[in-house]
């Protein structure tokens, strides 16, 4: 097989990574942008989404599609509710102080992780995809008799992977509409711009914060449900998405949603391609190097806004 099909295959795998990463990172970016809280527990909300998806699918048994659909709704709602509870009982009492919330969310990370280990256990468990048809992809060649298509061996994807990309794009567009076209989005952006002035104009900032924290966690949980048929649910699975989300959010510019999505596509695709041709470790090294370069040359990220 020539080089072209390999690159196509790698980009397809990379797109799935990018889609899930974009959703997770947008959650982290929203929380940082509006609340100025660096949420170290974000990866654990992701992990909880996957674990809850397994519980839901497992207890419903029978039909894979039904169990998965239920998980897609229940997991983000439960995780969002848990995050709102954590916001009201912990972060609010710390007055959203930037340093103390970092320590608090580190604590939250270990609590969630250990409780999951004690209840769900150390096994990695799969959730069955609702549909999973193998789709062969054609490639073209210039033969003796001109242009022709053929199906190289191994060049394929699954209908589920394409659906993951589609679902992620749909939800991201939903978040965009929420932020730019709705009343709640306006209130969230005003709070992000100036917290004290938001208060001075009657915006219940604490309620906005609780909602944003819940929404951020729900986005992480949603993307975890999407990935769990490909990756399996495990109590330590939150570390990688957390690290990659931070990389993406820093490159894209803290608090900038378009920057976050663009950086996720960049990191996801390059991760896929570099992992196929070289090694996954090299992909991580290059991503981290990129973060370093961005921090040196554009400290506010590619799309970051300098705040007064």
């Amino acid at each position, binding site marked *: 097989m020539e080089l072209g099909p390999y690159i196509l295959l790698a980009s397809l795998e990379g797109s799935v990574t990018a889609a899930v990463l974009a959703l997770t990172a947008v959650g982290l970016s929203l929380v940082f942008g509006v609340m100025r809280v660096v949420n170290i527990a974000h990866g654990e909300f992701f992990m909880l989404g996957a674990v809850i998806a397994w519980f839901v699918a497992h207890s419903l048994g029978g039909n894979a599609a039904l169990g998965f659909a239920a998980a897609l709704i229940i997991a983000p709602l439960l995780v969002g509710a848990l995050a709102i509870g954590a916001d009201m009982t912990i972060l609010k009492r710390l007055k959203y102080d930037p340093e103390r919330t970092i320590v608090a969310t580190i604590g939250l990370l270990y609590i969630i992780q250990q409780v999951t280990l004690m209840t769900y256990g150390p096994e990695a468990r799969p959730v069955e995809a609702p549909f999973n048809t193998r789709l062969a992809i054609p490639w073209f060649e210039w033969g003796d008799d001109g242009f022709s298509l053929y199906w190289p061996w191994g060049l394929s994807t699954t209908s589920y992977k394409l659906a993951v990309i589609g679902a992620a794009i749909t939800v991201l567009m939903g978040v965009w509409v929420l932020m730019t076209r709705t*009343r709640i989005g306006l209130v969230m952006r005003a709070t992000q711009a*100036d917290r004290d002035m*938001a*208060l*001075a104009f*009657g915006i219940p900032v604490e309620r906005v914060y609780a909602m944003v924290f819940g929404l951020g966690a729900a986005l992480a949980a949603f993307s975890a449900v999407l990935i769990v048929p490909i990756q399996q649910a495990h109590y330590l699975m939150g570390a990688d998405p957390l690290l990659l989300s931070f990389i993406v959010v820093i490159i894209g510019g803290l608090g900038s949603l378009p920057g976050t999505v663009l950086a996720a596509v960049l990191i996801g695709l390059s991760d896929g391609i570099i992992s196929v041709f070289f090694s996954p470790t090299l992909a991580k090294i290059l991503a981290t190097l990129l973060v370093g370069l961005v921090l040196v040359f554009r400290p506010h990220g590619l799309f970051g806004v300098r705040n007064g």
Partner: protein
Amino acid sequence: MLELRGVNAGYGRAQILRDLSLTVRRGEILCLLGRNGAGKTTTMQAIMGLLPLMSGSVHLDDQEVSALSSHEIPRAGIGYIPQGRRLFAGLTVAQNLEIGLRARNSGPEVLDDVLSLFPRLRERYRQRAQTLSGGEQQMLATARALCLQPKALLLDEPTEGLQPSMIEAIRQVIVKMRETGVAILLVEQRVDAVLSVADHVAFIENGRKGAVFPAAELQADHSIVERYVGV
């Protein structure tokens, strides 16, 4: 009527305001004069509930607003025009005004009234707030507060860094608000600009209230101002 009764407040353990009592009647402009760091801006933040009171209380008409949570204080009818404007960056003129309108569920006729006071904002309606000129930003900050149909209005250095024509426009709006019976608390550095518009002037020093004079009296005898503010 806006009334502060024995207010003590500060940042953390650093107390700024000490037993500060002030009264601003409806249809009156009271100006706070004092040196830098005397506690003028802190007074306004304390009224808005942006810093916690150590003791004392703030009343608007018969309501004790200092007992409300911070976001409910503007809903009681206090409009705040902070120093440095502090518009919602990234939001358009229309969206900044919308935030103001929603605070007290003001209707579209309020928006019309406010925009007729500042026709310039109508031209800039879809522009982002940070792209406006300094004077236009001050107009927007004022308009945003007027969207609350406030019973009391707090203005913190509204003419800072503006050209004379803008200062005059802002001044006229303040006088118009006084005519409609709004209680106005004004902080201003430029003494001359103040004396022509204020009814009373209260001096503030180290967070304590000094004497209160009718503005006319200060206009007649300028030495009082120099004694307190020491220019």
